[in-house]
């Protein structure tokens, strides 16, 4: 309950932003405006299967096991 109260308190604090006049202001998704950052379509080696699955706790046939998924 303490936890929920704290969450409500923080969300209440967030309400302060409603006081700011943001009309006509562009949102910033990044720290600076740069566009068109990309790489050429050149293949680089990836991980070996062993490295790819090294941290998977449950695996079989070189695949990661999950509980049965029914869509």
């Amino acid at each position: 309950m303490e936890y929920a109260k704290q969450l409500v308190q923080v969300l209440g604090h967030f309400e302060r932003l409603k006081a700011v006049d943001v009309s006509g202001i562009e949102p910033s998704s990044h720290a600076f405006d740069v566009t068109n950052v990309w790489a050429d379509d050149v293949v680089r080696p990836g991980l070996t299967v062993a490295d790819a699955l090294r941290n998977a706790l449950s695996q079989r046939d070189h695949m990661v096991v999950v509980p049965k998924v029914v869509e």
Partner: protein
Amino acid sequence: MNYEAVIGLEVHVQVKTRSKIFTRVATGYGHEPNTLTDPVVLALPGALPVMNKAALDAIIKAGLLLGCEIAPVCKWDRKQYFYPDSPKNYQISQYDQPMCLGGTVEIELPGSARNIMGEHKKIPLTRIHLEEDVGKLNHGATDSLVDYNRAGTPLMEIVSDPAMHTAEEAYAYLTSIRATMIYGGISDCDMEKGQLRCDANISIRPVGETRLGTKVELKNLNSISFVRDGIAHEIERQIALVERGGTIVQETRDYDGMAGTSQSLRSKEEAHDYRYFPDPDLMPVKVDAAWKSRIQAECPELPFVKQRRFFEQYQLPYSLTSVLVWDRELADFFEEAAKLSGKPQPVGNWIANDLLRELGTAGLGLAESKVRPANLAALVRMVESGAVLGHAAKEIFVAMFATGGDPAAIAEQLGLKSAPTDAGELEQWCRDSIAANARALAEFKAGKDSAINAFKGSVMKAAKGKVNPKLVDETLRRLLAAS
């Protein structure tokens, strides 16, 4: 009451790039599980995405080919949901600023007969955006196994307006998109490999009604004929349901193409909140005029445009163009041979009939064909000039298909060349023939033109078939007129 169906399609096309959309490990199909991964694909802690330029070029090309407006700026958004095939548990996609807006897909509906052109329509598109493909789940008896090889393959989602009304239209739409993507070198669109996937949104309404009915999403339409059958089945199901007094519920249904039935997967009541927000790891994409015009220059002429040009430029019949224009290499092959021979129609016939039949029988692709535009054109010219006769030409063609090479040399080698050069010998055969057929001569003189065939037969026999029939005809008529 009469009902009308309203159909919108969401088509996913895997873009043919060497590396994945946000990292440079290779893409591929049919590899050993989890051999095409890296920290980015597996969403290891700390891994970051970097855009693949070729995937961006590809979607711009697709947009230009389909007449879309290319957004001057687009960004990347995270579509968030938990699923074991999605390593990050969000998919990088484009939400409110897709790369391509609007555009149309031209389709042709079946004509009244195979050799008659059907009605053409333009199906409007809503948008095309780029996103990343997910991994593959292999379902076992008690658990599921995840292979991440496919995860991160660039995927284009082409969304149509709800503007189609029959399963035939949807089928023609998908066929046209596939041809466009293959033509543009954007994707191989092999549905068996999952390179082209299709979901359909289907609703019905009374004819004359303008509002949309409740839509049902049909999934797993994983072959082009399943798309047609599945949609037809769903339209029938909805109409039957409504006519029985039932109500359509908004749901997702799974189509089983083998059984020809569908079953409900889930109702759309609890619509998912994907909590889309701009991906802070990726910068926006700005497309300027120079980039667009560079891609425009790589855009091929699309099949329907090519078909109209073939009508105009070569006076080809529909039956030939409809064979030639759907395969870009075949159309190019035709055009080259037509240019070299100056005889488009016979070239078209040779390709549509003989070449495709031989390739089909041999199980070969056009690229492997030993008949090339140059030797085909040479063969056509030989036939036109009378240097070889029809049936001999067929034999030459078969030899050319088997071994390649120049048709004149093959004709020489096989002794198939017609020999019209010795005019004296031909004239003698003709005189002999006329002299030996008094009855036919009389008939001819009496005005029965077909009587000339009796002389031709014996001349051809004497010449062992190696004379040009046109020359025989001329010579006979000259001699008959004089006799």
